[in-house]
């Protein structure tokens, strides 16, 4: 697959998303599990989680049976190619980017983030670190086309994430700054504001609640919550991969609050809290969601 031209893969991705979408009409195509970064088959992860907890959120059959047809794997392939391509003013690849486990070491790195990085003095999530590496290793500026191309950033993020599939969520809590960000994220989670007085807990606290037809995952049930925080994911409804940031932005939007901006401390704090709440549970990366 890695030798397929990217444009062909884009067409293939569109076609591949069809069986997943059409599954509800009973037309499921039993494909093979994708080996890109597999530590454990996402289908098996979900089946095991389902045995541990009684959850409407996990239990929707299309979520499990269409996992092998997850179109996000094609994005991960594209992302891998971009990641390893020599690009930018410095004509360098990102192969030596350090996501916390040492330069070029991606296995399990995504599941151990966000984390504090000495070289920047900041707690960074994978997206922030990725752009940092594009700037330092490749010489791209903030307003360069490469950094502004959110589609490509998401594809690279999907590739990096895929290398942590099946790893337990274990955001680093060794540095005081990591703890401070986690705690601030928790305060944000419970902070009511906006036209509707809502906080994240309005929808994501009591187990087994629905918003309209959608089953909501609860922050109190780690086995359920791990799927909720497993991003990037292919959204069937959007027919595209979506990043962790887009999930947060969407929730704040629906709560009728302001626009959260990517790669900010607020976004990192929230991500630190929500991944800490899934600690010890297997990551599903990339995920497939409705």
């Amino acid at each position, binding site marked *: 697959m890695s030798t397929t031209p990217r444009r062909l893969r884009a067409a293939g991705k569109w076609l591949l998303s069809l069986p997943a979408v059409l599954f509800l009409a009973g037309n499921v195509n039993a494909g093979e599990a994708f080996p890109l970064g597999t530590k454990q088959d996402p289908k098996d992860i979900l089946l095991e989680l389902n045995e541990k907890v009684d959850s409407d959120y996990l239990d929707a059959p299309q979520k499990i049976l269409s996992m092998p047809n997850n179109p996000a794997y094609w994005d991960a392939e594209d992302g891998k190619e971009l990641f390893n391509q020599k690009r930018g003013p410095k004509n360098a690849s990102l192969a030596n980017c350090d996501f916390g486990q040492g330069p070029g070491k991606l296995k399990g790195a995504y599941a151990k983030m966000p984390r504090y990085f000495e070289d920047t003095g900041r707690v960074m999530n994978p997206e922030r670190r990725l752009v940092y590496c594009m700037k330092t290793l490749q010489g791209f500026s903030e307003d360069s086309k490469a950094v502004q191309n959110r589609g490509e950033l998401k594809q690279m993020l999907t590739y990096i994430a895929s290398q942590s599939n099946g790893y337990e969520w274990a955001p680093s809590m060794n540095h005081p*700054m990591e703890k401070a960000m986690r705690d601030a994220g928790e*305060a944000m989670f*419970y902070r009511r504001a906006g*036209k509707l*007085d809502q906080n994240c807990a309005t929808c994501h606290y009591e187990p087994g609640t629905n918003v*309209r037809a959608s089953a909501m995952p609860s922050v109190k049930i780690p086995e359920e919550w791990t799927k909720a925080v497993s991003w990037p994911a292919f959204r069937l409804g959007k027919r595209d991969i979506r990043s962790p940031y887009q999930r947060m932005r969407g929730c*704040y939007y629906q709560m009728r609050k302001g626009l*959260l901006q990517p790669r900010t401390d607020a976004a990192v*704090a929230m991500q630190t809290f929500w991944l800490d709440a899934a600690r010890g549970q297997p990551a599903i990366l990339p995920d497939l969601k409705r």
Partner: protein
Amino acid sequence: MGYRTVTGTGIALLAAGFLFATGGCAAGESSDMKAGESHMKKDIPRSQYTEMSSEKLAEYLIFNRGFKVDQEIPENQGGGTTADRMKQDRIQEACSQLNGQAPDSSTAQKVQKIAKNSVQYPEGGVELGDWKEGQALAEDAYGWRVAHKVDDHNKRDPGGLCMNCHVFESDKKGRSGSIGVGLVGYGNKRGQGEETLRYTYRQIYNSHTNYPCGHMPRFGAKGLLTQEQIGDLMAYLLDPESPVNQ
């Protein structure tokens, strides 16, 4: 967002103190805004984050390192900027500190008192409107969104969002939410006495009068629905002809 570096711990601490100690809030929902807080732009070096309480750090990140707080909100959504959406009034602040738990009695009393003071009953008393209008409102979840896709109230009126959280009619259960209590047969159980009318009106206008720190939005107190619309929703709940009571 400019990350101006402030050198010197003293200056930074002074800045942090200043951020949370000075008064003044922008217009909009002014009567309920908590006192003694401003959201002026300040730069606090990251090395100071560990010195701050989690609530203060969250507050700082929201207004200075995260949200686009200077986005203008259309007049028909209440005007102002998104900073006004992110600021807390006293009820929001008190209920946020519970971390999902039920309120203690002093918080409950305080919140209930603020809520009761906010309720304005219609002149001439509470009356039921048109249940069909109420049904349409209850099922409509449009409105009040800003950020990256602003709802245009000139093109479409905002709805009541009710079905997001409540079941009103049994045959619509599959597409109704369950964050709030089920309301099938609401009127059959309660009748249409004065007590029921006022209770139901209060619940929609400001639910904290009945359930302090509950999760139902304050549709009257926050200007999400007019008194007439509340009357229509009440008809949907209480009118014997309404499908809620069939």
